[in-house]
């Protein structure tokens, strides 16, 4: 008798034209935190969907507690104790935390009506168990993103899930929040007899948290349930991408008499930014670092004119300007913004590659009677799409059919095509596999070399330290620190942390 709570044996899944899984194995030990790794398209999400009952494998077996089972729907999976904590927050935002936790089976009184007192009492127990200091009466939409995520885990526990799948849980959490999450996860594994499948692109986290690892590559196992102690970061990367990782060499740039292209002076905003002073030189990369909710993305949106600036001055090339909309920002001052939320704010999923890549330049290349043909757009964006090595069968392919990495490339390509002087890049590598990630890093450095000034917003400390020329630390909608990057990880990270935890 082994102690596996979930096992997948030689599973294959074929989609028209693609063999997504090819005899893949997966073994989850009771009480372990198991990392599931792989590049995008390696078959990871197919495997997850089989485990959660969304897909059914063509061949192979699925065993729960050593019993062969077939799962026909997510509900069935849930009933068998398998829950997923998704990347997208899956709570009912208008409901209270307590109700969300127990929604599947709300406690009722003898008339069959919901007993809310009991709902809040019972849900409180789950929150306490997770060391979450939240009133169960709080409406979910009032919570911070990190707390929502923890609530989701609490919810999974509340429905007696014994196997939790966490899909990129830390992608929008700050290090502190991540730390808290990990503590909670370790605690529930220890105390609640729970096993966890952890999917992440951040290898540091895998090493910190997990005890076993399975890597998929091209639908096959690159390794199966290997103990994490036996592996190094380099081994892992090699397993994932099939070759050595190319570490971006962050060269220290000589900051010589740069022309200042953007200057913020004593900016106060309606959202609560206070006394923001900031400069950005030509070809410079400044990093905005801070916890989620520290006001970084919000500052970017104020710069684009989406939120109101109450007082202070914005100067572009030392001329005071007013930015009232992203259109003004782009058309008159060549400021572009690559959103962290590709699907919602970055791309138009129902449109094709060409439309998405060309959207920023339509106005520029229109001719008489605002005539604009696909051919003209094609001619303009083609070099950039090629340069970024976007993998797409054709330019008329819908964006939603591309992989995450290629989608991100397109959302970069449209700004390259637009020829911006200032580019604000918000969390550029969230949910992107390592290969594409390093590619995008190279790209950002390359852009800066060519003279584009870049504001980089990232919660990924290594990314920040390898890319930025200067790191600006934000906290509570204020700028706390402005630190030239020494490109020394230990040194920089302690300095940055000092600003946040002073």
């Amino acid at each position, binding site marked *: 008798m082994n102690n596996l709570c979930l096992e997948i044996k030689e599973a294959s899944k074929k989609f028209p034209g693609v063999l997504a899984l090819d005899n893949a194995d997966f073994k989850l030990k009771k009480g372990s935190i198991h990392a599931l790794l792989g590049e995008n398209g390696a078959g990871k999400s197919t495997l997850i969907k089989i485990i959660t009952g969304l897909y059914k494998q063509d061949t192979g077996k699925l065993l729960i507690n050593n019993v062969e089972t077939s799962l026909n729907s*997510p*509900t069935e999976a*849930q009933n068998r104790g398998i829950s*997923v904590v*998704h990347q*997208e*927050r*899956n*709570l*009912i*935002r*208008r*409901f209270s935390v307590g*109700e969300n936790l127990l*929604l*599947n*089976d*709300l406690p*009722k009184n003898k008339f*069959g*009506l*919901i007993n809310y007192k009991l709902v809040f009492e019972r849900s409180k127990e789950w929150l306490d168990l997770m060391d979450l200091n939240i009133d169960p009466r709080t409406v979910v*939409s*009032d*919570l*911070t993103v990190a707390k929502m995520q923890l609530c989701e885990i609490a*919810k999974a526990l509340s*429905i007696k899930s014994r196997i939790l799948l966490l899909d990129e849980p830390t992608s929008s959490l700050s290090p502190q929040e991540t730390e808290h999450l990990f503590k909670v996860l370790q605690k529930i594994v220890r105390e609640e007899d729970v096993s966890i499948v952890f999917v992440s692109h951040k290898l540091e986290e895998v090493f910190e948290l997990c005890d076993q690892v399975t890597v998929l590559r091209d639908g096959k196992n690159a390794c199966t349930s290997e103990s994490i102690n036996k592996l190094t970061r380099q081994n892992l990367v090699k397993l994932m991408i099939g070759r050595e990782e190319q570490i971006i060499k962050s060269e220290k740039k000589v900051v010589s008499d740069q022309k200042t292209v953007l200057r913020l002076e004593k900016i106060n905003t309606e*959202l*609560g930014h206070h006394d923001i002073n900031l400069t950005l030189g030509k070809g410079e990369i400044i990093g905005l670092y801070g*916890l*989620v*909710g*520290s*006001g970084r993305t919000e500052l970017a949106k104020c710069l684009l004119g989406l939120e109101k600036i109450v007082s202070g001055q914005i100067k572009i090339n030392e001329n005071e300007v007013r930015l009232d909309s992203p259109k003004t920002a782009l058309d008159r001052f060549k400021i572009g913004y690559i959103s962290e939320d590709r699907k919602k704010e970055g791309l138009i999923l129902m449109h094709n590659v060409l439309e998405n890549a060309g959207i920023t330049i339509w106005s520029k290349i229109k001719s008489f009677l605002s005539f604009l043909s696909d051919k003209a757009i094609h001619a303009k964006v083609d070099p950039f799409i090629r340069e970024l090595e976007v993998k797409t069968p054709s330019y008329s392919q819908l964006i939603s059919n591309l992989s995450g990495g290629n989608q991100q490339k397109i959302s970069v390509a449209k700004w390259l095509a637009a020829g911006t002087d200032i580019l604000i890049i918000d969390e550029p590598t969230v949910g992107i596999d390592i290969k594409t990630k390093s590619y995008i890093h190279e790209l950002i450095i390359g852009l800066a070399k060519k003279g584009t000034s870049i504001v980089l917003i990232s919660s990924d400390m290594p990314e920040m330290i390898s890319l930025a020329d200067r790191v600006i630390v934000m906290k*509570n*909608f204020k700028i706390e620190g402005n630190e030239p990057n020494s490109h020394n990880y230990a040194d920089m990270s302690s300095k940055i942390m000092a600003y946040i935890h002073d």
Partner: protein
Amino acid sequence: MNFFSQEYFKKDWFGLLIVVLLSGVIISFFKPAFLSSFNLYVLMLSVSLWLVVAMSQMIIIAIGQMNLSVGAIGGLVAISFTGLMEVHGFSIPYAILTGLFIGLFCGFINGFLTVKTGISAFIITLATLYIFKGMNLGITEAQPFYQIPESIKNFGNAKIIGPVPYLIIIPIIITVMMWLLMNKTQSGRNMLAYGNSVQSSELMGISPTKVVITAHVISGFLAAIGGMLVVCRLQLGTPNIGDSWLLPSFAAPVIGGAVLAGGKVDVIATALGVIIVAIISQALVIFKIDPFFVQILLGFMILIAVFINRYREYKEERRKKIFIYEASHE
């Protein structure tokens, strides 16, 4: 002061209650007849019908859809109800049961088609609006049914006590049941969860089929009751019943702060919305407003209601932004 701002002003129904009371006071100040027993009776009669119609639409708004066929179902049930009694000699209870069953069935068709085909409820109910209304006309050939049993006529006219008509009993029961449903039962909460986010609710193990069909069946059921209430009121089964329901069915929930995208409805506020619309349409008659102006006023009324809702929402959003901002300071 804090107590007030936190408990009551946030509720959708509070402002509406003030509006109801205030307009009542103002109108009766100028026209004391407004508070006469007969006038209150008339007011309650019109509230009874529109309450049921508004609830029938509200439950569909709760799941983030629209039901354009509410009136068509009401009309079809009304003529079936009367027709069965007049032509086929059904006894009253059987006719009522059959009428309710037709309503349930029409609702089931709407729900089933919507959830199984994935086509928007707007389109499905637009089609069934034509189908149900077409059956109505096909059956009646535009002729009303006149033979209504005395007991039904009496039910439509009688008063329980003072100005309170018997007719209002059913709508009040329905309103209470709807409040319990939306606030205190699992299936009601499931509907609101579904209206909030189809995707999330599905991942939480809520069955869309069940939620959508249940909501539409209830909607059809309420529309059926509405149709029969009109019959009691008018004392004839005319094929035109239900033709004018569409606008009022949306007006009351919207005034009551319902979000058309789904997931947020307030039964009490909807009921107050019904009362406001009824008071205002009565006031227009009482004050002899030029009929040419009525249309325009109605339009502005909806706009103003929406502006107020929107403004409160905006305030709330601001509050939340600041709240989250403060929360992240911890």
